[in-house]
């Protein structure tokens, strides 16, 4: 599976530093953070799909995917916007006739949004290395939340 930017929502504090960083590096932000019910914030950006559906309707092959890497050639782009309609996550945006989506900041070791995240909520990795970790942490947290804090530490005696 290709590498992508993933969010650990238990860590996200909704500060939008990722948006600011992306905006500075790419002129417009390709990641967006929103707060839900005042209780959690969720950043969303291109999922870097293994089979990117956005490439499917592209009439001139401007968007293509080879060996799991999405390529975009602006010269061939007709600006028809069909790709934005084919993305199940709504993360491809057509602005001034150019497709804007996360390209993982080529030329930088870590995408700017990941590097800047104060809470360490954004992770740049393969999805496989991710799932277990977050699930385990979540289970641990749930246990803690449901039980009263156990007496711990020095004064156990």
């Amino acid at each position, binding site marked *: 599976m290709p590498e992508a930017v993933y969010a650990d929502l238990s860590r996200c*504090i909704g*500060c939008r530093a990722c948006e600011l*960083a992306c*905006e500075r590096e790419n002129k417009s932000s390709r990641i967006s953070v929103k707060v839900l019910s005042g209780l959690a914030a969720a950043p969303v950006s291109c999922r870097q799909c293994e089979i990117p559906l956005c490439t499917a309707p592209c009439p001139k092959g401007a968007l293509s995917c080879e060996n799991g890497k999405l390529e975009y050639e602006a010269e061939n782009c007709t600006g028809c916007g069909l790709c934005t309609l084919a993305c199940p996550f709504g993360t491809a945006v057509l602005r001034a006739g150019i497709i804007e989506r996360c390209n993982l900041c080529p030329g930088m070791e870590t995408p700017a949004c990941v590097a800047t995240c*104060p809470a360490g909520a954004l992770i740049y990795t393969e999805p496989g290395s991710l799932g277990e970790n977050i699930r385990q942490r979540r289970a641990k947290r749930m246990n*803690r939340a449901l039980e009263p*804090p156990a*007496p711990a530490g020095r004064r156990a005696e």
Partner: protein
Amino acid sequence: MKTTEKRTLHPTICPYCSLGCGFFLELEEGKAVGIRYMPEHPVNEGSLCPKGNAAPDILNHPDRLKYPLLKTENGWKQLEWEEALSLAAEKLGTARKENGPNSLAFLGSAKCSNEENYLFQKIARLLGTSNVDNCARLCHASTLIGLGKTLGAGAMTNPLADLSNSDCVFVIGSNFAENHPAVARQVLRAKDKGAFVIVADPRLTPTSWLADLTLRLKPGTDVALLNGMMHVIVNEGLLDRNFVREKTEGFPGLEQALQRCCPETASRITGIPPSEIIKAARAYARAGAASIVYSMGITQHISGTDNVTACADLALLCGQVGRKGAGVLPLRGQNNVQGACDMGALAEFFPGYGKVGDAEAAGRLKTLWKTDKLPEKPGLTATEIAEAAGKGKLKALYVMGEDLVNSHADSSRVREALESLDFLVVQDIFMTDTAEYADLVLPAAAWAEKEGSFTSTERRVQWTDRALSPPGEAKPDIEILLLLAEKLGLGLPYRTAGDVLAEISGAVPSYGGMTKERLKKGFGLIWPCPDSSHPGTPVLHVGRFKTPDGKARLIPVEYQSPAEIPDPDYPFLLTTGRVVLHYNAGSMSRRSKALLEKEPGLFVEIHPSDAKAMEIGEGNRLVLETRRGKTEATARLTGKIGPGVLFMPFHFPGTNVLTGDALDREAKIPEFKVSACRIRRE
């Protein structure tokens, strides 16, 4: 934005909050064009909050002040530096001669370097007045006093990274997730290791998201909560008896005072169920190492000093100070507010916290400064300066990098006060609302345009070099002050910030071992660093406290209600605070297009049930009114706050028109956090 060969990277320290995060400024042809992250920095580990990301917007901003400006009948007139400084010196000199040195006042800047603040207070005191203060008065004056009298030092006890070693983090009156975002990193790390996190805040903030237990207390009832917790701890025998016996004084008095503060009483005052107060008390006291993190929710009350004292009492009672992962961590405001205080830009303290009025402290300074006369009485504090000006007791005021019109409480009175001055000099990087009142405006350099040292909230002193030139004819504050001192005939013997630091190391004992060279190596030094071979002191109060006998003081405090509580005329309780996308009075953050776009104006949070009763819809314009004045804001309906409570950020002009100037009796900090308020739809 790609890094090309033409671009160079320059390490620097973020100019916004007090964490002291490091990053690289990307420069091209002398302009700041971008940011690169600095993963090796011990505080932020490469991360930056939204404001940090927008920091370069301040540099090269078209609104920057570029020339000295004189107010004339026909608007602002551009002056030469020579002319401007002669005028300033002449006006200050005349006022001093005619009305005595105490007709002058000086407001330093927690945004300026240690060297600049040191120089600033030295000029004031050499002119014969201790009327010199800084905006710490508005955010953490109560910390200086409260922690000073209990622990012996008014500063954070442990470094930020040490939070990750805590087994319990008790956050009270701090929304660090928005205001000091990089702290979230350490708290989350502690949580990963199994720490229990308690957040006490009237609002439900992103910081509360990280909590295992949230305590939503009524604004201004912190002492009642803390006393309630201590009651449980004493009652259940959870206190650290050895620690209390060996390292503290005053336990019997505290124990007696706490008898009246059972959880039920605390619950009635705070609105938190007794069971949760007990749960919080047990979690904190039983933890192997526990930290208290607090901020302006604790300090900005008429009971600010008491709140801080109660926090310190709680920590001392449980022996949660002076160890790894155990401490009291006030998160301070400005990037150099700790430093400005250390340097003595405070009405009652000389550099290094020697009390003004203490003959021994004055004696040492007289020798160092080679003068035979220093002010013998504490001067006016920032809040009192504004008041005295309003009463015509001040003739001239020199403001370095402070927008008191927007940052002080009751701004209408501040405006009147500024108008009644004979002469006002404002030295700043932008034409702030305060500068508009000035007779003379001096253009200063921003942080990356000068060199100097800055002390972060964790007492880390870091040096930054000049990365680029100031715009137009703007000058570093230190240069302006040195030129002014010359005009005033004070003849100060320095040329560079390094020279000033050399004197600081003699004047402030905890900076004794600091030199420019040492600070530039690595990531600075954490004070106290008394001599040139000392590695710095990350954790304070190990073994003994900074009091003369080495013992901390347990001081009982009693709950007192806020100065102004809602009544039929003003039925809402208005509290103020900050949001993640802006900073303090907003003179910097509101000039960043990216930040302003995302948070464009003044809003007020109101509970949906109150909104419904008053037929207020999301986005309606509301008129808010207190006994001081009125202002308009856009309604935001949210359950983040409780019914009967309103919240407004103070980053936009208007909020502090409403806030009251009731002061904490010891620290003289205004009660920004509680005002009685009424609202109506526009």
